[in-house]
């Protein structure tokens, strides 16, 4: 496109990409709605699949949403604190992807079991997804411990994202076949995001392990710190088992072997030892039992919404 007058192509590097059409900037064009063709405006239009208990389905959606929301909040804490500007943006993108997954899942939970939505303060205009995020206490959250523990250093961040994304990717790949069309659509969207998160984190784990003595020491220490949290991710909760039997959910026990396999490949590429064999685990966070780290995380995340319960955002 020829430049004329004051519009110099050098002023806006993106001009050449769009021929000067700026409509792509804010929610403009070509954005794909993951629920397009699946769901109407509120998510209530889609019935609960046959043989699935509505309350179980809602609880299951909240479990997956809580994992995403709490992990998102932890990763978002890296914003402005990452080792480099580029990592700052990369980590923020991961956090926002997970936040998007959480919103869709909370919305589905509220649609199939409206009684399960936490009560809002008088006069609050908040949608159900915000009720789940901001007006529940720690004991009501059903996320796994890996999502909630404190951040540590950058090596912790990439090891944690690697383990979390590998596990969640294995779950969502199967969940994209769910008999619940909303969960299936949300999972299909999440698969692409999580594939990138796993790739990003895996590369960093290998890079740090093969970098300097200091970077290797740190990534090995991160692996030692976070590895004890992995067994809980493979522990089946009764709700997950029932949903899996009905074809609407995934029992995490079935993905343990494939996740182990991927993590072993990364360790091999990084020249890292096989960690100690771990004991079988039972659910912790899925039943509302949490580490001490969750309460301050929620206090931080919920402070603004609770201070202004009638606020509009």
């Amino acid at each position, binding site marked *: 496109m020829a430049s004329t007058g004051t519009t110099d192509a050098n002023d806006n*590097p*993106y001009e*050449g*990409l*769009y*021929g000067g059409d700026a409509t*792509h*900037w804010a929610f403009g064009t*070509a*954005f794909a709605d993951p629920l397009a063709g699946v769901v109407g405006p509120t998510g209530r239009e889609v019935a609960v699949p046959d043989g699935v208990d509505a309350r179980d389905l809602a609880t299951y959606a909240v479990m997956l949403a809580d994992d995403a929301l709490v992990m998102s909040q932890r990763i978002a804490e890296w914003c402005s604190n990452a080792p*480099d*500007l*580029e990592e700052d*943006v*990369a980590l923020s*993108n991961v956090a926002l992807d997970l936040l998007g997954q959480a919103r869709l899942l909370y919305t589905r939970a509220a649609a199939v079991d409206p009684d399960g939505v936490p009560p809002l303060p008088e006069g609050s205009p908040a949608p159900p997804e915000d009720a789940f995020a901001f007006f529940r206490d720690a004991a009501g959250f059903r996320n796994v411990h890996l999502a909630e523990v404190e951040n540590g250093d950058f090596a912790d961040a990439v090891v944690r994202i690697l383990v979390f994304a590998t596990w969640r990717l294995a779950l969502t790949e199967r969940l994209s076949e769910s008999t619940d069309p909303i969960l299936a659509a949300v999972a299909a969207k999440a698969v692409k995001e999580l594939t*990138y998160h796993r*790739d*990003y984190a895996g*590369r960093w784990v290998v*890079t740090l392990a093969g970098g*300097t*003595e*200091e970077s290797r020491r740190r990534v090995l220490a991160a692996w030692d710190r976070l590895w004890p949290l992995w067994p809980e991710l493979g522990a089946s909760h009764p709700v997950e088992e029932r949903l899996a039997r009905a074809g609407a959910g995934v029992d995490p026990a079935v993905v343990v072997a494939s996740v182990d396999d991927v993590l072993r490949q990364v360790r091999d590429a990084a020249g890292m030892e096989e960690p100690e064999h771990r004991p079988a685990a039972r659910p912790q966070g899925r039943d509302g039992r949490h580490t001490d780290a969750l309460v301050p995380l929620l206090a931080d995340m919920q402070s603004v919404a609770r201070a202004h319960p009638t606020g509009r955002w």
Partner: protein
Amino acid sequence: MSEIRAEWPLYEVFVRGKRGLNHVHVGSLHAPDDAMALRHARDVYTRRNEGVSLWVVRSDAITASSPDEKDPLFAPSGDKVYRHPTFYEIPENVPHM
């Protein structure tokens, strides 16, 4: 401990938009290696749906013209109007001209 470079090398980033035909330079970033530069470019420059393809190249691999050479390189073409194909009558039934 081996010597550590204080700064990652600089890379230039080129994005091809959905509707664009060619890659366009959009900016630069730092990255530890080529593969990571591509991922950083994805994270920094395509997070608002800008592109479908990315190139990254080490900035020190680019040979650039110097501002000092601006006149001898570019000024001579400023008055060669006959180099523009503007002296032809284009028939009305020729499309895309």
